[in-house]
């Protein structure tokens, strides 16, 4: 398992997949939104938390199709399936690797981008917290989507079609936390919900993903 994690991280960095790209994409989406919406800072400030979440979500999404598809194409998955470690472990490790290379950087970058969107001062802390709690769910759910679409060549679009609806609850509560944080309102309910979703997903999704993956390998 450790070997797998290390290898995935290595690959992410070498193949120009990891860290940088997700971040850069995040940045671009945010900037683009600024362009698209127009320079009005007050307006930007109001939509900032949402846009940050949206950006994070899309950045995750775009890197999802590399999670399993690459290994499927070059046969690594077949070999891993015959290897001693259970598929559940494999998908979990993959999700973890995806989070480290995508989710984590986003969390760290969010405050900086918040500045670009003139996010209200008290919002910074909460957007970070919300993302920190929410992004793991995104990675795990995403891995499930990747496992379903792994057989389909370049299934990127289908993947996002399947995954995005599953992201809805996380997004809503996450954005709610951020928005309320920015407006300085009470936010324990949404915060609880996000944490709940993340925990539940972390606990159960890997089994679903592994099951689906087995189907796709046969």
């Amino acid at each position, binding site marked *: 398992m*450790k*070997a*797998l994690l290390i*290898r995935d991280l*290595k*690959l992410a960095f*070498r*193949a120009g997949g990891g860290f940088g790209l997700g971040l850069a994409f995040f940045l671009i989406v945010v900037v683009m939104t600024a362009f698209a919406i127009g320079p009005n800072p007050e307006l930007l400030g109001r939509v900032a938390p949402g846009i940050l979440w949206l950006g994070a979500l899309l950045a995750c999404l775009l890197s999802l199709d590399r999670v399993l598809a690459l*290994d499927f*194409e*070059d*046969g*690594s998955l*077949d*070999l*891993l*399936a*015959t*290897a*001693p*470690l259970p598929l559940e472990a494999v998908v979990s490790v993959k999700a973890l690797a995806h989070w480290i290379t995508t989710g984590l950087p986003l969390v760290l970058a969010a405050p900086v981008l918040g500045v670009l969107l003139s996010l209200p001062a008290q919002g910074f802390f909460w957007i970070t917290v919300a993302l920190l709690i929410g992004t793991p769910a995104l990675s795990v759910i995403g891995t499930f989507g990747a496992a379903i679409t792994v057989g389909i060549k370049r299934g990127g679009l289908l993947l996002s079609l399947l995954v995005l609806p599953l992201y809805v609850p996380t997004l809503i509560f996450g954005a709610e936390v951020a928005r309320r944080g920015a407006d300085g309102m009470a936010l324990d309910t949404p915060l609880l919900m996000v944490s709940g979703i993340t925990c539940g997903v972390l606990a159960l999704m890997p089994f679903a993903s592994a099951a689906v993956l087995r189907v796709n*390998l*046969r």
Partner: protein
Amino acid sequence: MKMTVTDLTIARGGMPILAALSFQLTPGRALILRGPNGTGKTTLLRTVAGLQSPLQGDIDGAEDQIAYAAHADGLKAMLSVAENLSFWADVFGQHDVEAALSIFNLRDLRDRLAGTLSAGQKRRLGLARLLVTGRKVWVLDEPTVSLDAASVVIFADAVRAHLAQGGMALIATHIDLGLQDTDVLDVTPFAAVAGTGSGASDEAFL
């Protein structure tokens, strides 16, 4: 311990392609699968390796014993030869890759990115992987594709060594590997006759 396949029926795309197939793998011996293109060798190997489930029949003594090698070598273009190999070694709980590297003389290529290897070199690396799995049963699908004569000999020696240590091998190939005293199984006669594929997913609809 030996591996026994009894009365196996396998399918692709919902239709049986090989039926009533039985054979045995005994330590120290290799079984060569032969048969024209499209008879179902690859499918059979995948089934034996547990990558797809048979329609009927069962496979004993295979669990966690099998090292599978197919057309796709599972190499990462962006990892060096040594890294690729040691990754699989770790996964299978082994450690030294030096032996494998030198047997398939990949020593001088060890730091080259796998993506820059030639077809034959890639294949050699793929075969070297078998040595670091420490598994007893090798299940190989056309292992010598795009290998030159010398490398074929190297491979044959590797198989012989593996058998000598009480390993087993199930190999599908179209060309002669120069392995002595191996059992040969021609799968052609087992081709599933239409309608006999009881249990095939589509049978229910007829």
